[in-house]
């Protein structure tokens, strides 16, 4: 990865899924990258403004206007990662919105882009 590359990209499948979620909800949405635990290690998807962000949150970028945040301590602990927003089967976690076909959003580190799964 070079410095010029964006911190956040999205697969075509993620962009299609995002469009469908926005249509279903009738609203813009936002993403917040979660650390791990009983759920997590995924971007949580909320209606825009649902999750109150503060000075300690970093805006990594946006996907078609949907902002993608990450808490700064987590961002530093993960070594300032770059992400590719993607979708995967299986329901969403926590209070996150799922995709219209019963899947959920995932974030893959950009180094994983070489795998067939995200190509």
């Amino acid at each position, binding site marked *: 990865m070079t410095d010029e590359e964006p911190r956040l990209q999205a697969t075509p499948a993620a962009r299609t899924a995002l469009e469908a979620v926005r249509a279903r909800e009738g609203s813009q949405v936002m993403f*917040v*990258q*979660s*650390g*791990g*635990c*009983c*759920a*997590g*290690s*995924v971007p*949580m998807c*909320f209606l825009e403004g*649902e*999750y*109150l962000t503060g000075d300690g949150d970093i805006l990594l970028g946006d996907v078609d206007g949907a902002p993608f945040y990450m*808490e700064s*301590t*987590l961002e530093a*602990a*993960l*070594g300032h*990662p770059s992400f590719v927003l993607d979708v*995967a*089967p*299986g*329901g*969403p*976690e*926590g*209070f*996150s*919105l*799922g995709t219209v076909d019963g899947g*959920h959003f*995932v974030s*893959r*580190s950009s*180094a*994983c882009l070489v*795998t067939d799964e995200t190509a």
Partner: protein
Amino acid sequence: MLYSAPGTEGSKVEVLTEYGNFIGGQFQAPIEGEYADNPTPVTGKPFTRYAQSTEADVEAALDAAHKAAPAWGESSLAQRAIVLNKIADAVEEHLEEIALAETYDNGKAVRETLNADIPLLVDHFRYFAGAARAEEGTLTEIDADMVAYHFREPLGVVGQIIPFNFPLLMAAWKLAPALAAGNAVVLKPASPTPWSIMKLMEVIGDVVPPGVINVVTGPGAKIGKALATNKRIAKIAFTGETVTGRLIMQYAAQNIIPSTTELGGKSPNIFFSDVMAEDDAFLDKAVEGLVLYAFNQGEVCTCPSRALIQEDIYDEFMARCLARIKAIKQGSPLDTETMMGAQVSTNQMDKISGYCDIAVQEGAECLVGGQKADLGGDLAGGYYFNPTVYKGDNKMRIFQEEIFGPVLAVTTFKDDAEALELANDTMYGLGAGVWTRNGTRAYRMGRAIKAGRVWTNCYHAYPAGAAFGGYKISGVGRENHRMMLDHYSQVKNLLVSYSDQPLGFF
């Protein structure tokens, strides 16, 4: 011994085609009539359906809870203790069935549910039955004519959101103190594990007054939010990850109610050279202490997922540990010989695989495992992962992020100072382990590690009488211990004058 799968011939555990919510002492179909498939991690195949509830079901559960709360809150401590003891007795009587249900819903090995999860659940209710009986208010003699009386009063109706890793034990951690303190509860289990709690309700439903415990299943984005944001709850308790935890605290702030959050960890497990001073039972215990990262397939908020080993014993100590790890028997979670069962979901499996990819990309050395396990036959569709160990550097992502799987990150340290620095170089502060034969070192390390619990020469013990909770971003509040009765009540002060004399101001 291999148990028959619940719902199949020869099993003691009945499985209905679908389960509604448990509201007001009865099972009720969800108002909109929607259900979702519930797969078992054992095979990956759906075995029943659970209610996909909506906001209206949460309101119905809150109606039932509010109806029950006044009488329950006014009942004597002795009466409440009787109910808690009856819950414990009923579960103990059906321990095997409930353990099997928990194993089938979650995927964990049945030897764990039979010997840990469910016996601990039983003990938890008995502990709080006893603790409640011993509760006392306080009084302060302000002066000769004035006394301040302090009473503990219930909060009323509380909301509780339970994680998937110990669906019943974590429910007990929250239910027992809430009930003992006189509250009624609306509880939402995690979406991957909606069934075993309903089997628990089948067993304890008729010993608890209707409406005191209500259970609603369904998607977090809909009913978790409907519960956590509801103006009719007096407290919200949550165990899960940090983003949802922050949202819970945000909702609590908006309604000005207290919250308890338990939000995970990346717990260091520290082994000093002196553990190898003798080749004895203690060394054997320490080796097992490292391998406990595989307990519950690593799906534990306090999983000892970072092993820090003093460099002069690393080779020999790790060789012993790896031999023990390679002896972990994977197989059907319903087999009492199985030592490590299935991960809870395909989501979880994919995350674990993803972290293993990251470990390799970051240059960590794989000492064992690193891939999914194909156990063949009926288990081929189940969610099995091999016990895994990577050696690396504490700055790597596998040392910093909670993987929630059977993946151990190992590194070495030179001296006490470096051990402490590495132990505290984490966002989290839930658990830690210290292993040494030197009592002074154990004390100094234990006090200096920034975590809510430091297991000392032991790990993964969860007695009801020991407070549990996080430092740093691992959450706010505690669970277990009788101090929980304070967390589920509020203080009423009666300030009483026994003087007949006016103040003389007016």
